[in-house]
């Protein structure tokens, strides 16, 4: 930090730290509340059963999006008001302001994405209501409205990552990027269930999707961090989320069943449903990625190294997921043919993930004003 720039600079940083952290923390809290609601809801259907619209897990899911959406709306309105009044707009709060509807609104990039995701969530919520009216509460996670809802929340969380990336000058900004990327991986393990619609014999398509997204997001963390440790940090954030939800979701389903007087199902396999979909081997795999990144010290370009690292990561995630599923659900024998096929497809997906992820990391880095800039766009 340039302390020689005088009092004005110091005041500006302190003020933006204060004003930026509150809305960033609020959209992250919204994302986390949605994640809690989702893991609880899935466990509820597996362990207890009946669904109505007004369950506690649904309340968490909906209020999470509402919190993220309202926080984004407030920031957009404040940014718009500031620009109209001719006050400077701090790009560390959510990124540079983008004109929306001509110049009616000025919306910081990150909050625009979060707010758009939250608004779409509400529309898909209405559609989901209509769907349940027609088909009943079928508790099918991969129905079209559910996938629309999950994709909307995904958009909101991507906005959250962007909001923190814009504040990378602050420590909380970089920590927030890592944390929200972890939330995004955890969340997307359910969204990829939409791929169940694609039926390929002998291939675990959902695990290929998990390989793609986890490698992509871990590489994005590495590309953003731009020094050793970014990939491992994101994987560690996922491991923490997995550990907490592993304990939380079965407990919450049982506690809620007790509160509403419903029995647990006769046969419960005891497996926390959503946490067991998250790739358990991601932390050591991320360490392998970090080792491959070291090749760039030998003069290889970082982007190319990330493609190679991504392919290796995709191969390992692709191989580990069917093995993880067989162990967690106590399969009689290991499905080796599926393991090899999924690993091969995972390597191809990982190649793409490594390529795009590294670039996304760089793009996230550009959301923040350059250091030394007075941060006013």
């Amino acid at each position: 930090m340039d302390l020689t720039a005088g009092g004005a600079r110091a005041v500006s940083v302190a003020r933006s730290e204060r004003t930026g952290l509150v809305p960033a923390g609020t959209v992250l809290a919204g994302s986390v509340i949605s994640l809690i609601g989702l893991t609880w809801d899935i466990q509820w259907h597996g362990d207890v059963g009946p669904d109505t619209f007004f369950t506690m897990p649904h309340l968490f899911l909906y209020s999470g999006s509402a919190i993220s959406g309202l926080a984004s709306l407030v920031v957009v309105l404040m940014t718009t008001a500031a620009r109209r009044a001719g006050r400077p707009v701090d790009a560390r709060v959510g990124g540079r302001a983008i004109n929306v509807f001509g110049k009616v609104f000025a919306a910081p990039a990150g909050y625009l994405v979060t707010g758009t995701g939250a608004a779409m969530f509400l529309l898909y919520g209405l559609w989901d209501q209509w769907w349940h009216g027609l088909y009943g509460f079928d508790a099918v996670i991969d129905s079209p409205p559910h996938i629309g809802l999950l994709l909307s929340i995904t958009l909101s969380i991507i906005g959250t990552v962007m909001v923190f990336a814009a504040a990378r000058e602050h420590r909380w900004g970089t920590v927030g990027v890592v944390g929200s990327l972890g939330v995004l991986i955890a969340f997307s393990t359910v969204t990829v269930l939409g791929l169940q619609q694609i039926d390929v014999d002998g291939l675990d398509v959902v695990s290929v999707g998990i390989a793609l997204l986890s490698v992509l997001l871990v590489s994005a963390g590495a590309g953003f961090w731009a020094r050793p440790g970014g990939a491992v940090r994101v994987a560690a954030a996922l491991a923490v989320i997995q550990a907490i939800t592993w304990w939380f979701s079965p407990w919450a389903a049982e506690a809620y069943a007790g509160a509403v007087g419903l029995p647990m199902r006769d046969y419960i396999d005891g497996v926390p449903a959503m946490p067991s979909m998250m790739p358990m081997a991601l932390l050591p795999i991320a360490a392998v990625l970090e080792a491959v990144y070291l090749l760039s010290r030998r003069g290889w370009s970082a982007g190319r190294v990330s493609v190679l690292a991504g392919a290796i990561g995709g191969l390992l995630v692709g191989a580990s997921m069917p093995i993880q599923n067989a162990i967690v659900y106590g399969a009689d024998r290991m499905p080796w043919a599926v393991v090899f096929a999924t690993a091969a497809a995972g390597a191809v997906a990982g190649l793409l993930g490594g390529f795009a992820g590294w670039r996304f990391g760089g793009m996230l880095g550009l959301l923040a004003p350059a250091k030394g800039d007075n941060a006013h766009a």
Partner: protein
Amino acid sequence: MRKTLLALVAAIGLLFATTPAANAYEPVNIVHTERVQVGPYGMTVGFSTWPLRAMQSLDFTFIPDDGIAGKSGTLAFVNPETGRLGRPQPLAKHPRKLEVWGLDIRALQTQGSWTFRFEIEGPAGKGTGELRDLAVLEQPGPPMAVSWSISLIPLIVLAVLIAVAWRRTKSRLRGNGLPATV
């Protein structure tokens, strides 16, 4: 801040306190029944919706003539689309009608002629039986391709966003962006 937190905790507490009343789950209403002979056991299969339509969830009940006490069993479906017998699942108590076996919120996903295959073990030994030719009519609502197209709009929004950002940052990230190691 503390006040806000307290208010939030109070609101959640209130919700928990009032949910039992709000969640008075509806009783299981059987509007149609079919008979199946599962080895030595006669059984009534009940449906809360009739006729059945694809993708519409309903309550199924499976009631052996002299009750479920002392018995266990499994149920597997033959999906008309694939013709394959699915993995058998244990017959379990219906969550809202605990004296009988049943399935809640279950939908049969495809139209056609379904088969339910039962296996029951009890005092009179082990038996198997099938409920065949269970007609499931076409799904209501819009075609699935339309529904999926609507649902993938956020993905399209995301793709457009990425394409724009990718193009705009191209020059600044030339040379593969930031170094991997410092």
